[in-house]
């Protein structure tokens, strides 16, 4: 149910631009509006997205569609077991002519980096992403190179039960703002997909609908979304609840609280609100928190996934004092 009040003017543009991007992506991927909305949220929250699902459900397609719809440099890295860190960050090569070492930027030097099947690379290589994801910079041979804004890593991975994969280390997972599962498409959406994708790839027809500077302005607008003390406290309550839950071995980090609030800002802005409400946090709690948590042995024995635990916690943790006293 739409809330009947006016969208603040500074968000008008944002909502319109976001709508354009969404439509562009939806022209490629049918029936996944939730996932697309979350993807945009992560983009506006200056975060990184982890897309996890079985092969063939359109993970890479989503990443590429987003990258395409924004007119910005996009790099794609196919992670393989023999991929080396320098293959990602870049190398300093000796230039015969200038007789100097010259830095050859790797694929991370882009606005959107699509890491395909990130869990196929060795932990060493995966770790190469740590610095650039968190600090948005790359250090090679003692020289630090800043990355361009916006910078977003969209990684896809197969579930770790599949053969030949290295599970992401906790530190790495914690750097992804949200994890999303594509899920199989609805039968009707799948039918439509057969029709559309039968001929040429629709990706080729996708034209950029937003520019880098536009996206940067959008991010700036999202930063201005108001978060009341009550909502901040609610975010902390949620994180604390995961730390105390007997079903979890590892709870949510303070970084995750930060990212939760950031994502909630973006979520509110996409809904045309200039303030965050607890509903934003509730909607985002599972995608933002679940992938960082480790279930306890008991929970594993009961086949309770962290997603379920977080859902339960959201149902239990009281929303900020709604009795204004």
């Amino acid at each position, binding site marked *: 149910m739409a*809330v009947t009040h006016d969208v603040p003017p500074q968000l008008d543009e944002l909502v319109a631009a976001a709508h354009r991007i969404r439509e562009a992506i939806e022209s490629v991927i049918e029936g996944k509006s939730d996932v697309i909305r979350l993807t945009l949220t992560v983009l506006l929250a200056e975060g990184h997205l982890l897309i996890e699902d079985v092969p063939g459900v359109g993970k890479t397609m989503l990443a590429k569609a987003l990258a395409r719809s924004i007119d910005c440099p996009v790099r794609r890295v196919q992670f393989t077991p023999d991929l080396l860190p320098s293959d990602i960050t870049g190398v300093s090569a000796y230039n015969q002519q200038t007789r100097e070492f010259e830095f050859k930027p790797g694929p991370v030097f882009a606005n959107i980096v699509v890491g395909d099947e990130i869990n196929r690379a060795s932990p060493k290589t995966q770790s190469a992403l740590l610095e650039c994801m968190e600090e948005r910079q790359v250090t090679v041979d003692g020289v630090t190179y800043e990355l361009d804004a916006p910078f977003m890593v969209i990684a896809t991975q197969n579930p770790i039960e599949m053969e030949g994969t290295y599970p992401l280390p906790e530190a790495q997972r914690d750097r992804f703002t949200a994890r999303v599962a594509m899920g199989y498409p609805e039968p009707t959406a799948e039918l439509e997909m057969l029709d559309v994708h039968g001929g040429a790839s629709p990706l080729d027809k996708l034209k950029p609908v937003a520019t880098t500077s536009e996206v940067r302005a959008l991010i700036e607008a999202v930063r201005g979304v108001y978060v009341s003390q009550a909502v901040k406290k609610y975010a902390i309550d949620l994180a604390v609840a995961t730390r105390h839950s007997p079903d979890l071995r590892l709870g949510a980090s303070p970084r995750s609280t930060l990212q939760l609030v950031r994502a909630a800002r973006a979520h509110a802005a996409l809904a045309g609100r200039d303030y965050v409400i607890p509903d934003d946090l509730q909607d985002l709690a599972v995608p933002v928190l679940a992938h960082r948590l480790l279930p306890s042995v008991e929970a594993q024995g009961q086949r309770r996934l962290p997603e379920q635990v977080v859902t339960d916690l959201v149902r239990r943790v009281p929303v900020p004092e709604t009795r204004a006293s």
Partner: protein
Amino acid sequence: MRLSVSSAVAVFAAAILLYPLFSGGAWFWTSLGAVLAVLLAGLLGSRLSVPAWAVPLAGLAALWIFLTAVFASGEAWAAVVPTKGSVLELARLLATGWTDIQRFAAPVPANDGITLLTAGGVGLIAIAVDLLAARLRRAALAGLPLLALATVPATILPDPISWPAFIIAALGFTNLLIADGRERVGHWGRAVLVRRTRAAAGPSAGAAAPSSGDGPRERADTGGLRLSGKRIGFAAIALAVLLPAALPAMEPVSFFTFGVGGRGNGKGNTISIADPIANLRGQLDLPERRTVLTYTSSDDRPRYLRMYALDKFDGQQFGMTQPKGAPENRTDNGPLPPPPGLGSAAKVSNVVTNIHISDEIAELSFLPLPYPPRQIRVDGDWRADVDTLMVFSTQDEAAGLEYEVATSEPQPISEQLENLPEAREAVDPRYLRLPDNLPPEIARLAGSITADARSPYEAAVKIQQFFTKDGHFTYDLRTQGHGNSALKDFLLHSRVGFCEQFATSMAVLARLAGIPSRVAIGYTGGTKLGESWTVSTGDSHSWPELYFDGVGWLPFEPTPAGSLGQGSARVPEYTQPRPRSTSSEASTPTPGATGSEDDGALGPQNRRNPRELDREGLVATGGLPPDDSMPLAAKIGIGVAALLLFLLIPAGIRLVTRSRRVRTLGWKVAEPSDELTARVAVTAGHPSVAAAWAELDDVLLDHGMARGPSETPRALARRLAREYAFDADASAAITSIASAVERVLFARDPGRIGPMKQDLRTVRRALAATVPRGRRVRAVLLPPSTLRRLRLMGERLLDGFDLLETIRLRRAAQKGA
């Protein structure tokens, strides 16, 4: 270990209940010592792993040694080891203590003998409690010896046990139960914790109460268990103390015929009456007049107050047949049995008398009452004897009593009495019985007095007149002797005596004249002091009552009144000889036969009219005033009404809360006029929004669709609209409320807030329409929102108890550190 200590504490706490029995505190410390001695023995027994059966023996030995050391150290070897001398000394003390207890009433002086008995008794109970709680692990059963200790003051003293002492004793026992529960659960392993956060936050609790007995080992944390145990215990004790104060006192109701006295009834309570005549004489002889009772009556006239009716004449004096008080004749069962012989034709005057008996009167178990009582309102188990209408009790005493009695006094006019029929079948023949050896002179005297009497009534008047006028009798208290010779002496020779002689003699003469009679003993009407009549010991009196069919028993007054006789005695009007010649009514209209015809003609009318009046009088005003005397149904009704009112308290609170909120809703509806006002409004909060939200919350709770703790305003609106199929209006209303609440709570600038009164009403109606009628009624009468608030208050109270708990633990921890 813990159990032994708890047992000792419980015994000692229960022993505190004994304090009103003693004057002086020696028993207290000695009893404490005895309990400690038993505890020491118990602890040693546990430490040395003595078998359970041996520990009480050790306790006995310790108690013995302790008592020897305290009371007979001079005779004992090395002051503690019992010897033959010390045993004899203890036995002697016990004997003196025993006789002292028999001799003194509580509070008894705490001398050696009594202290020894007390300390020994408390010590024995400590052994029993220790055996049951710590050895046999039946802590609940250990309540029995403790109860035995607690019943001692309850049975001996008339006053109830003081509640602070009761609380202490109850806490002691509760502590014992909790200790037992913890000990038990301690063996299971991990206890189910009541409060996770508290249990986690309170490691000090575990540290403060370590088991010091068996070295370090893993112990279950029973803190949570103890917490709930304490809560239950506190609540139970609080209820036990507070509830009786709120309940009416209960009185025993006898389901069996539990007649008092009675010749054929061997069982039951018997009543012993001090010789009423000796009592009367004693009171009249008192050098100073003491107030016996005061009374006020509705017509403010003095009345004889009768206590005893003596019916048996044995030739020497009148005595009383044992009265019978059947349970159905209890005074609180409504009106008393009808007065014997009082026909419906008799004219009666209904009077209500309030009587207050002085506190100083001892052992008075008969109520002084004007005759004939119809109804009495009095506290206690008072019963009426059907024959004589004496009201007495076998359990209660009249001292200090205040009661109200309604009487229907016959108001016979002399003429009416003269025309009474002479049928006397209804009267018990004992009222006419005379001993065979009655001197014939007396019978002759009776014959001569009543020779020309035309009716029993006239005979009675003549007899009275004989005493007061014709016989030249003198009133004097200094009279001795009873019996036939005394009677003969009084009637024929000395003619000096006081009310007893006069009353007895007249009763005897009446019997000789064929009139049933008895002697009443009680008080005259006394003298008027201020607003009320005061009756003192000097007003003790005795008078004859004579029976006439149709009017029943009538008092007569043969004793001289005034300063030369019984001061406050009064001669009843109807016993005055009828002054025929001066009767104005008879002589005024027409003389002679006409007058008598008139009398005859008027007679039936006069008689009929009073009869009707009487009946009404008997029915309408015969009993106590109806506004005072409340029928059982009315009492139940009032009780039910009070209960209903009590049950409606939550509904009332709810209404008040709602109206307050609705008023708040009206406060602020406008848009803030400028930026500054808006800021102020935000910081000050929006009282109207807060009120609307709180009210919505309560409405939801009342209708059983409470908002979950994690449900946001928006989610709530969505759920209500979806689940209860709101129409467009209601949906818009709930959405508008939710949006306003959301903005006020979370937005930087809530913007324009519209009036919400109407929205709230729409939502409330929509919600009410979705629930069944019963639920709606409940929402109004017993609103869960208010109940929740009350429950929260209760929980806060319990939290207060918990707080006390932590304070104590902290102190213990500090002491340990």
